[in-house]
């Protein structure tokens, strides 16, 4: 097993059989996010300047702190991002997460997540590196089949 140095820019993508509007809902609405995003719901109006805070769906702990930097429904959402699920991560500066959604034709959309500005947040970079694949795979499952991965 080779060790990895988690990159300061990470780029993930997935094709989902859905419209861009459906994917926008999957990113923003709690009834979707809690089923694939480690049980999280995001408190935000999803407009530029709004807070973007991720909480455990069962009403407790805050996992993510951030603010919406740019929003262009249903194609682009950019937020700042500070992970709070461990002290070492919470101590690091804000990074940035960009969700890009584009129609790929035939009822399929391409979703790309770019997590960058992680240069000064190496622990966060390391911590999210495996997570985004899990999140995107889970979202694809929920949107396409109505079932979460563990259902």
């Amino acid at each position: 097993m080779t060790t990895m140095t988690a990159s300061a820019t990470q780029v993930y993508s997935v094709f989902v059989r859905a419209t861009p509007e459906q994917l926008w809902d999957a990113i923003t609405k709690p009834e979707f996010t809690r089923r694939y995003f480690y049980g999280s719901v995001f408190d935000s109006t999803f407009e530029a300047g709004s807070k973007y805070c991720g909480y455990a769906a069962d009403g407790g702990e805050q996992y993510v702190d951030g603010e919406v930097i740019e929003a262009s429904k249903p194609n682009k959402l950019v937020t700042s991002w500070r992970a709070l699920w461990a002290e070492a991560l919470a101590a690091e500066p804000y990074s940035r997460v960009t969700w890009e959604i584009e129609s790929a034709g035939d009822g399929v959309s391409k979703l790309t997540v770019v997590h960058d500005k992680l240069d000064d947040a190496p622990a966060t970079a390391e911590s999210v590196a495996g997570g985004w694949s899990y999140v995107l795979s889970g979202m694809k499952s929920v949107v396409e089949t109505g079932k979460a991965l563990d259902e």
Partner: protein
Amino acid sequence: MDDDPVFKALADPTRRHLLDRLFERDGRTLTELESELEMTRFGVMKHLRVLEEAGLVNTRREGRAKLHYLNPVPIRLIHDRWIDKYTEHRVAALADLKTELEESA
């Protein structure tokens, strides 16, 4: 959307090697990747294109550079679609065996 290009892309040792290089350090140029392989620039380009078409590599432009990023999502999808299914079965079989052995003991 379908798994075939992913399995085909992964079936080649050079392409797996390229993914491992990106796993070690992500966001590299063709020139950087080429310097680690005993292969022509054209050969590396061809392999990268197969990986890109399978969705295993994403590219982004940064200034004049084209950077290659590992996208592990298709591998995660294969894991969730294929591997989980069979390993879960095995776990269930072991659980059954345990019950059977304990009952007959």
